[in-house]
Structure formats: C-alpha cells, structure tokens
C-alpha cells in the first residue's frame, strides 16, 4: 500500500488541488491500494479539509510542527509499504504515471530507501555550521564521495526506512536540511537513494522547460 502524506499550512485550496488533481489519478494509475494523511499545521481548524479527508485530517491544534516532525507523525499512523510525499503548496503533475516512476525502483530493488530528484548536497561539515547541529558532522561523516540527497518537495520512501530513520526533532533541523539529513541517515543505514529522471524538484526557482518531466515541484506550479 502507498501512504500519501500532505502537510497543509494555511493553504487548504492548494492541498485539495494537490490531492485531487495530482495525486489521486497517479495513485489509481499504480493499481496499488492507497491511503492519505493530511497533517494541518494551520492556526485554525479547516472544515473543508476535515470534510474532505475525515479521519485522515489531523489538525495539530494550532501548532506548527514543521516539515520533518509532521512527516514522522503521518508515517507512524498507517502501516504501509511506501510513503509518498508531495508538497501541498507547490507542484504539478504532467502525466499520471509519475507515481509509478517513483514506485518502480522501490519495487525492483529492496535496498532503495528513497527516490526522487537527486541533487548535490551540502556536506555534513556545512550543516554543522547551523547552531545546534554540530552533532551532524560526526554522525554523518563519510569517508569519501560528494554527497547527494533526495530533494524535498516530492519523493517516495520505503516506510520501514522512514520508521527506522525518522526526521530529527531538533528545532534547527525540523524544517531546514531535513532532506539532506534523512538521506545521509538512510545511506549510513545501508540503503540507497536513487534519482528518478521524470521528477524535478527545485527550491526558490522556476522550471520553464518541462520536456519529459512528469512531475515538477518549483515556485511556479501550484
């Protein structure tokens, strides 16, 4: 089963659009059963989202739990094989087979822990510049290699790896560097992270040329 995770934050319309327009057709396309959890970090309870998602809508009582801890809450909630995360605020599907493209490497290779848009990372030494994150340098020291990470915004992960390597809960890492740190944790744990060429996820940027891309997460698409 695929467990889709959405995080709403004062954007109920975008959250509904992401689910109805971009995720549901693609989840149906995989032929696998699916569920969804919507973590709502908004200040106010949203009756529209509550009506749409019923028991799968989890308003956090007005507390913004941030990105990483929100995903941790969702992952622990429903037993599943795979976690599918898509940013509710930004993104757009261009082909309903985009989730299958994420699913295929997970199904064919049990050592793949996470997949999506793989890009070059800051090093753990860089993250150690962040106040309160000095421990990252030691914990994720790698002997060799330029680091890469699965970019946040849209990804699929094996649920067992997400449970084994939850996002850090420290405030400094709850929303920043989360995608770097989760990738390093999985790689340290013996899992691989892989790139899916039809997926693109960038931050603070716009993708103009969509040739061949089935899902784009950027500032322009919502």
């Amino acid at each position, binding site marked *: 089963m695929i467990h889709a995770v959405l995080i709403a934050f004062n954007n109920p319309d975008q959250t509904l659009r992401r689910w109805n327009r971009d995720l549901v057709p693609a989840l149906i396309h995989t032929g696998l059963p699916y569920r969804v959890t919507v973590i709502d970090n908004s200040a106010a309870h949203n009756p529209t989202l509550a009506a749409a998602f019923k028991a799968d809508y989890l308003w956090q009582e007005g507390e913004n739990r941030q990105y990483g801890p929100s995903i941790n809450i969702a992952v622990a909630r429903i037993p599943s094989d795979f976690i599918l995360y898509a940013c509710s605020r930004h993104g757009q599907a261009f082909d309903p087979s985009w989730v299958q493209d994420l699913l295929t490497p997970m199904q064919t290779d049990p050592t793949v822990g996470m997949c999506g848009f793989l890009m070059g*990372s800051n090093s753990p*030494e*860089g993250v150690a510049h962040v106040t309160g994150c000095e421990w990252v340098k030691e914990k994720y020291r790698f002997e060799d290699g330029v680091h890469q990470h699965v970019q946040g915004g849209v990804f699929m992960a094996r649920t067992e790896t997400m449970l084994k390597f939850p996002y850090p809960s420290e405030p400094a890492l709850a929303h920043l560097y989360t995608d770097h740190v989760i990738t390093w944790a999985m790689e340290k744990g013996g899992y691989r992270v892989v790139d899916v060429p039809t997926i693109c996820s960038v931050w603070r940027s716009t993708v103009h040329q969509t040739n061949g891309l089935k899902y784009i997460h950027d500032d322009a698409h919502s």
Partner: protein
Amino acid sequence: MTTEDDFQKQLDADPTDWMTRGVLADWLDEHDDPRAAGYRALSMLQVWPNRWSSSDSRMEEEQWLFHDGRGTHGGVPIREGVLPTAWMRVLVPSQDGDACLMILDHDVLGESWYDKDTGTYSTATRRQVEDFAVLGFSKLTPSQQSDILNGIAVFV
C-alpha cells in the same frame, strides 16, 4: 593606473585570493564606493562564491554558495553556505520562515535571467555575485556588521 577591472581579473583568476579582495576593498574606500565594507568583510571571512554546476538538464540555473575552502572532495569544493544568517536574509528574503544558503542566478540578475522569447538563460558571473553580496552587506545595521566582522554572527 590601477582600475577595479585589474582587481576583478585577479579575483577571476583566483577567487580564493582574500588578500586581493582586501586591497580591492581599500581601493573602493578611496573611491567612496559603497561596496568597500562588503568586500572587506568577504576578505576577512576568507570566503568566495562557489558556483554549483550541474550537468542535469532539469537544473535551469546556477546555485551559488559562499565557500570557505573546507569540505573539498578531490580538490573540488562541495557545497557549503557560510555567509552569516543576517547577511543571507538581506540577500535572499526569507521564504516560509526558512533561512537560505544559496544564491540563484535570478537573485543576482533579476528578471533578465530568463528570456521568454528565446527560452534561454543567462548565468551570473563571480563578479556579479560578489557585487550583489557586498551591496547586501551595506544594508546591514552597524551592529550586525560588527558581529560578522568580529566572528560572532550566527549561521543559519
């Protein structure tokens, strides 16, 4: 007579050359140029803008991160972001509360980065990125500038 172009050519040849960057700051001071303090700060921090080039066609613009020489692999600087938080917030306004480490081509070049008619992109130069950064430094408060120069500024 020495011109700014002479200094900038030297920095293009060796972006790590913090001494030339410091001399440039003095030269700019003598010409009442508002970029002087920022170039001096970059020289004192011994950081320079490092272009993160990707051959991946999905990446349409360059990402620039200021680098201090640590975290190299095979002689190639890997991505670091070492400008203090307050400075970065002036350069790249916060998005959803996030602090940002990277400067993108469109931050430096503005709307001209992408030509809609031809579908082509422009890439910023090292000099343009540094000018962008040092003008941001001039917008910091004296207290923030002092914290940075005294090495007590907070990183993201």
